[in-house]
């Protein structure tokens, strides 16, 4: 098993099925990438780099987006 910590919750993937990039992860989670922001181990990833940013077993990922607010 491999795992990523996504928004504080550990998500496991069968060996070899860990999404290879941020874009692939968003796709797997069915999240619209155009309005999301991602942080991997505390480092912000530019949206244009979602497709090229590789993911590794054990990384901690924050996925955020806009909600209503004042």
């Amino acid at each position, binding site marked *: 098993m491999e795992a990523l910590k*996504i*928004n*504080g*919750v550990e998500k496991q993937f069968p060996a070899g099925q860990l999404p290879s990039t941020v874009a692939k992860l968003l796709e797997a*989670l*069915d*999240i*619209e990438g155009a*309005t*999301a*922001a*991602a*942080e991997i181990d505390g480092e*912000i*990833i*530019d*949206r244009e780099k979602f497709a090229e940013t590789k993911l590794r077993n054990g990384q901690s990922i*924050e*996925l*955020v*987006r*806009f*909600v*209503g*607010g*004042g």
Partner: protein
Amino acid sequence: MDKLVIAGKKFSSRLLVGTGKFASSEVMAEALEKSGAEIVTVALRRVDIENKNDDTLRAIDVKKYLLLPNTSGARDAEEAVRLAKLARAATGINWVKLEVTPDPYYLLPDPVETLKAAEILVKDGFIVLPYINADPILAKKLEDAGTATVMPLASPIGSNQGLKTRAALEIIIEQANVPVVVDAGLGLPSHAAEAMEMGADAVLINTAIATAAEPGEMAAAFKLAVEAGRMAYKAGAAAASKRASASSPLTGFLRNAQKEE
């Protein structure tokens, strides 16, 4: 109405609207439309992996409105800077409504952390609109640090209490060289009109619109109030006095001449 200019960008509307607390995206979209607002605030939160349908941004036409991400939830400067950078990464927008509110009960902004975050963000190229208590000295320091506006509160966020900080707001307005946006606590169109009559450059309304029985109608009412208040300010208020001053001539009354003395 004269234009509002923030960081060199011109706006026809002096009403900024927050997007929180609306019953639905449809109700929000209608209220934004009727408010005439050109700047709308949004918050940044973790994606709810289990409920991905709640995507506010989809209901907001980003070609029509300037999205102003806030740093709500930040308890210190470090968290606020992180949120601002994430917001910029999500949209490419470098405008940020800076709010640092460590106290969950009154949600009052932390002046020390707000100033610290503002200095960092301005240096990093952000257009910073800081939410602050109505503190004239802090407003000055933020302006000196390069913020695009100051956004003093009228009363605690979402309290609808109106202009409880009036005397301090008047000093801020008198001294400011950047637009003063009165934010938080304005509960009625009359509160907004009063702030504008005092010379505020704009107001930001969320709760008073979003939680009204008819948010669309209330948004329209705020639009009129803000316009009326601005027009009144520009027209120059007549002086107030303690004693009456007759509006009608005090001569030519239909009574005996002897009694007219």
